């Protein structure tokens, strides 16, 4: 994975930059010792590591503004970081950068139930946003798998989704307003506790911009009252394609579950060995969850079971209690951990139209044979967000490269099927070089133009999202301007 050559002139000014940062932050909030900066050398894409020049941990919007102003004046690249859970390398440093971590900014600023929003500092973790309101019966809907650890800042940067977004939408559908600091240090307020934009929808543009347009320090988030209850049904099939057809039929029938999760044979077997969830021995498994009162749940599950029964399932297991629900979810929720027990893996997240599910699963199987690497599929079937897990051996020379090559083929397949490279993880460095496969030069130019407007010197997380060759001139102009 290529990263830009660090600027020697920036590295030569390290002590001055650190001194200036120490002038605006508490001493313990500026990390510059080479041993300590290692803590920030990677995110959850651990195959790639590079300690930053320094890391800062501000606690207020004002401090973030001061840090960015100094870095802007000094021409120092900045990489924003939430909790460092990106699977796409969104928070991977360069050797000449300052990591701006928001982890110490985790206050709840305001909770408003009549108007159904919460305002938080963005270092707060996703799950603890719900934690702040759940005693009063409310929750924050987007639920990425990493929700225990991941920060709202990163959720906004990557427009994170989760299992339940089939009903509740992803981050952008639940984000109402932000305080954002531009690379110059200027603080802007966008949106608020009201709905929609009064002029251009900059909020929609910022969400999912991977920390390249500004650093979001505070966010107003929509909260909802919790449903009265929720229960899943588990349905096993002896064929992937039949499971895919069942998903499509459920959606067509007008039932809108909160989640439809899919696991294939390899995942079922691995999860079963790991978690003993009592899953049937079959080729494909769907977990479909619905919400409402007991009677409403019964009614919806009955409709789903009726549709499922038309597809010759090998097993239909309707949860009747909280314990049975937990058992059904146990295997699915431990899927990533279970797969990690048996092998190193790379997790992709291309999205496809639901109708293409059978074809794409078949082609992934063929690619698996061709490359000689096993693939497990566990994903959000309701919205076509695939998560193929390619198994490889990190200690075997060449295996990571082979795995990446195969991953690229799968993602191209998703694009060819009418889908996209990434549904919820973001581009980061991982899928950067495939952007030209999904987008024509003019499409990318329009996106680059947006970055030019928000960050004209390309100092903010500049080596991400776009292929380095595409962003090269813009990034090097910045260095030349020093």
């Amino acid at each position: 994975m290529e990263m830009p050559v660090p600027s020697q002139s920036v590295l030569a000014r390290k002590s001055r930059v650190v001194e200036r940062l120490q002038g605006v932050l508490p001493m313990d909030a500026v990390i510059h010792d080479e041993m300590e900066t290692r803590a920030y050398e990677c995110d959850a894409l651990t195959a790639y590591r590079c300690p930053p020049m320094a890391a800062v941990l501000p606690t207020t919007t004002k401090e973030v503004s001061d840090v960015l102003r100094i870095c802007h004046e000094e021409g120092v690249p900045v990489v924003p970081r939430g909790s460092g859970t990106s699977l796409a390398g969104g928070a991977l440093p360069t050797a000449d950068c300052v990591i701006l971590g928001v982890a110490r900014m985790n206050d709840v600023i305001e909770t408003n139930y009549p108007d159904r929003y919460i305002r938080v500092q963005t270092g707060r973790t996703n799950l603890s946003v719900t934690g702040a309101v759940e005693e009063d019966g409310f929750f924050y809907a987007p639920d990425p798998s990493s929700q225990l650890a991941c920060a709202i800042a990163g959720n906004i940067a990557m427009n994170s989704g989760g299992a339940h977004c089939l009903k509740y939408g992803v981050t952008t559908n639940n984000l109402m307003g932000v305080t954002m600091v531009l690379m110059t240090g200027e603080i802007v307020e966008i949106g608020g506790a009201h709905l929609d934009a009064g002029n251009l929808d900059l909020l929609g543009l910022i969400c999912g911009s991977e920390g390249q347009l500004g650093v979001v320090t505070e966010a107003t988030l929509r909260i909802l009252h919790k449903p009265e209850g929720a229960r899943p049904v588990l349905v096993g099939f002896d064929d992937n394609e039949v499971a895919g057809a069942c998903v499509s039929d459920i959606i067509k029938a007008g039932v809108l579950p909160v989640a439809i999760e899919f696991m294939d044979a390899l995942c079922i077997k691995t999860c079963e060995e790991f978690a003993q969830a009592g899953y049937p021995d079959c080729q494909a498994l769907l977990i479909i969850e619905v919400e409402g009162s007991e009677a409403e749940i019964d009614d919806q599950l009955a409709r789903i079971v009726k549709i499922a029964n038309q597809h010759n399932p090998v097993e239909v297991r309707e949860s009747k209690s909280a314990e049975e629900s937990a058992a059904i979810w146990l295997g699915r929720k431990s899927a990533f951990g279970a797969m990690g027990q048996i092998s190193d893996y790379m997790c992709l997240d291309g999205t496809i139209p639901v109708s293409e599910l059978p074809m794409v699963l078949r082609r992934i199987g063929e690619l698996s044979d061709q490359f000689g690497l096993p693939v497990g599929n566990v994903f959000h079937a309701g919205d076509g967000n695939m998560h193929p897990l390619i198994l490889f051996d990190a200690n075997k020379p060449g295996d990571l490269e082979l795995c990446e090559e195969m991953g690229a083929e799968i993602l191209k397949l998703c694009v060819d099927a009418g889908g996209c490279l990434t549904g919820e993880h973001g581009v980061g460095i991982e899928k950067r070089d495939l952007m030209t496969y999904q987008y024509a030069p003019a499409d990318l130019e329009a996106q680059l133009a947006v970055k030019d407007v928000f960050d004209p010197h390309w100092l903010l997380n500049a080596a991400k999202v776009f292929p380095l060759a595409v962003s090269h001139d813009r990034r090097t102009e910045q260095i030349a301007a020093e």
Partner: protein
Amino acid sequence: MMTPTSEQELSECVSQAKGPIAIKGGGTRGVGVDGDVLNTSGLTGIDLYEPGALTVVVKAGTELSEIETTLAGERQRLAFEPMDYRGLLGLKGEPTIGGIVAGNISGPRRIQVGAARDFTLGVRFVDGQGTIVKNGGRVMKNVTGYDLVKLMSGSWGTLGVLSEVSLKVLPMPEAEATLCVHGLDMNDAVGAMAAALGSPYDVSGAAHLPNDDTGVTMIRVEGFTDSVSYRTAQLREALAKFGGEITVIENADDAWAAVRDVENFHGKDGDVWRISVKPSDGPAVVAAIDPLEAQFDWAGGLVWVRTEQGSDVRAKLSGISGHATLVRGTGQPRFQPETVGVAALSAGLRQRFDPRGILNARLMTA
């Protein structure tokens, strides 16, 4: 007048333009800008409709009615319930999907399911220099690159002319019921709507139509028949404490269309403003403006007011966060002026997407 019949022709129309272009879909939104008219009526048709994937891909000039008819054939719909401006503005013509996406036009169900921008999965457009650009796609989850779909939705054609959009659709519900709480004043009405939306009963509409000092407060639920009856009963109980008489009407589509299109204001004089605030600020907005007439949608968060001609409503709303749009009238900027920092970003984007400033020129900045 230019009437391109393909995206390529649309691109040529824009790149060869010598002056301002007034983009016209159905002509039902009262855009009213100067320039050569660029009509999108030659860019029509449903390119793809997959009911099982809840997606439809259509050319921007396609009439809303055609899309709705097609979706209804599969018992699906555009859930964001786009408002029809014709009655309010006294205009004829057929609304097009391009206009709806470009204006981010939604309706009462916005509080439950989201706005037009939330249902727009992908766009193709021609920018101010004639360059054809695509962004997003036709899948529900897509974080591949920047989200220009959101930027285009609500930009009213000023950053580019839409040529094609892909949309998420949703199933039509089996049943619908509306609780009408009678006789509440504005403050109690907003309280009742907050209570309804703060419940687990998945409310899909909350509006208050004043009638002298009190009025009727409408709460809608939709879904499977038994579920609708259950939730209606639960809400009736929860709202009893507000004191008004409660009646329930089924299939209140016409009543909700009247709320959506602000029918109470039709055929009456004066300016019309659309104000988005946090719901609990709704009554304060009305008190500050003292309008000829007002109506609440979105539980109080969307305030429609009819005022004397030439009123500067924004000046009266200092201290209340949100935004006001002058939907009918002149003499004030139509769209909410932005704060200095945000305005600089918007101006930068406008400079890059339409450097000559020819697309619906000054519509959003004057």
